């Protein structure tokens, strides 16, 4: 029988790590398949790579990237604000607000995004003028031509925002529902009103549930901006297809556009990472370090080890002498 005293008290675990041979086999297979695919594209004489390099930083493409990014960000911000309103309405005690929210979500989720975009593009055909005045009288405070008031860009942003709000509303609602009822009661017992409670107590806690799916939505939105091609907003996809309709290099320009979409997707995941961290505070006992902090720590550790070695060497020398 082994008692505790007889057991090794050595802290360092020197076990031989478990081997995973199948990981290596799988990795090799993946590399071979990807290599074949890549080389077939790379060596395809129908794809002329110089066009990719020529157009990837073309001013029209860069302008398209810029517009795509702006449309994505504005639409997501507007959609998020609307979504919070819709979610609150959906959960309110007021039956009228509940019904409005329900109908909104039903309608905007139930019709194709493409149709909604075209609709906002054609609004000028439906209403020649937009007028702000007293209903059923001739008195008018403000009137403007629809097409000047809502150019394609604005119409596109409106369409994307309104549509996204319907999806995001359900995400926000799930977030609000995830908070324990005791939080609201504690807030009320401190004399906080319903609005303050929502803003300071419920919403910030919901964020950790809301942000990951909203990251998904942002990436969807980024790609959905390409649908604005149909109303001639010069975003990334429109720009690349306009160029390719001139030089007939469709595939090369699609690759250019795709590389940019991939790049923006990667860039957008950075703010998501930091937002998640921000709203995770208090959730676990200690937050994991950011990549930057980790790099710094690693550097300090390596330096520390070098220092230790030097100190140990010195000590040994002194002992010997």
């Amino acid at each position, binding site marked *: 029988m082994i008692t505790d005293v007889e057991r090794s008290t050595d802290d360092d675990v020197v076990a031989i790590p478990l081997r995973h041979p199948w990981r290596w086999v799988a990795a090799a297979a993946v590399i071979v398949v990807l290599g074949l695919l890549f080389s077939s594209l790379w060596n395809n004489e129908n794809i002329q790579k110089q066009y990719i390099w020529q157009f990837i930083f073309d001013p029209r493409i860069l302008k398209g990237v810029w517009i795509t990014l702006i449309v994505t960000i504005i639409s997501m911000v507007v959609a998020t604000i609307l979504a919070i309103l819709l979610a609150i309405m959906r959960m309110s005690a007021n039956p009228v607000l509940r019904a409005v929210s329900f109908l909104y979500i039903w309608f905007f989720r139930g019709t194709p995004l493409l149709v909604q975009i075209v609709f906002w593009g054609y609004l000028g055909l439906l209403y020649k003028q937009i007028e702000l005045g007293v209903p059923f009288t001739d008195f008018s405070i403000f009137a403007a031509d629809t097409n000047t008031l809502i150019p394609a860009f604005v119409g596109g942003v409106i369409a994307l925002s309104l549509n996204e709000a319907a999806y995001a509303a359900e995400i926000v609602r799930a977030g609000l529902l995830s908070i324990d009822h*005791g939080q609201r009661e*504690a807030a009320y*017992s*401190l004399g906080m009103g319903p609005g303050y409670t929502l803003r300071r107590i419920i919403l910030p806690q919901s964020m950790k549930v809301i942000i990951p799916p909203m990251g998904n939505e942002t990436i969807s939105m980024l790609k959905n901006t390409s649908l604005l091609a149909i109303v001639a907003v010069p975003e990334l996809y429109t720009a690349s297809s306009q160029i390719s309709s001139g030089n007939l290099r469709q595939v090369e320009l699609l690759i250019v556009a795709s590389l940019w979409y991939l790049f923006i997707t990667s860039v957008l995941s950075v703010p998501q990472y930091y937002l998640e961290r921000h709203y995770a505070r208090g959730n676990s006992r200690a937050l994991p370090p950011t990549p930057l902090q980790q790099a710094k720590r690693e550097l300090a550790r390596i330096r520390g080890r070098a220092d230790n070695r030097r100190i140990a060497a010195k000590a040994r020398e002194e002992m010997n002498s």
Partner: protein
Amino acid sequence: MSQQELMVDARGVRKWFGTNEVLKSISMTIPRGEVLSLLGPSGSGKSTFLRCINHLETIDGGRIYVDNELIGYKERGDKIHEMKPREIAKQRRKIGMVFQRFNLFPHMTALGNIIDAPIGVNGESKADATASGLELLERVGLSDKAHAYPAQLSGGQQQRVAIARALAMKPKLMLFDEPTSALDPELVGDVLDVMRDLAKSGMTMIVVTHEIGFSREVADRMVFMDAGVVVETGAPRDVLDNPQHPRTQAFLESVL
């Protein structure tokens, strides 16, 4: 006893949950500075009664006055009108409540939990609120935990922060709903110590607890409730050692 000296005056309070009558005409008066211990089997309506006092639950009959103000309603002639949420919130500021499950705000530090309502609701300056918040933390023995998040605190520490949070609103009445029931036995003492000090300082308190020793020592009066009615009231010593009602006797036999 004159009206002015009463902190709580509950008259014939009734509460239904669906077809279940949970409070069957509860009447109770609590003078200023009194510590009242509320005892009774699970499901007898103790929590519901506390929650009616600060209008977390609406009542279906009777009246509750706290500090001579009707809670949740306005009296105009012989009619009563529902209050606006803002007015109810204002009434709740003078009633502190401590929950069985602490209900600290997990996204705020201990100090953040304490100073949020004084700043956001009472309009205190951040400096003032922080100064009195740190004082309160010291009073509950947690000066070193000001910047810890609730997840980093033990249950007993969380409950003491929750008490400090309620006190930060300078309430006139404190409601405790089984404040030590969710705690490991060795952590109960620290929380009871804080409550004992609070009672000594003259706070009016209603305490739902099964800590018989605490009630015997600290409470001025004990009320035994069962199935939505007040069965027996008296000095803790009398109720505990010489219960008059068979239901009180049966309950005490089961817990002691």
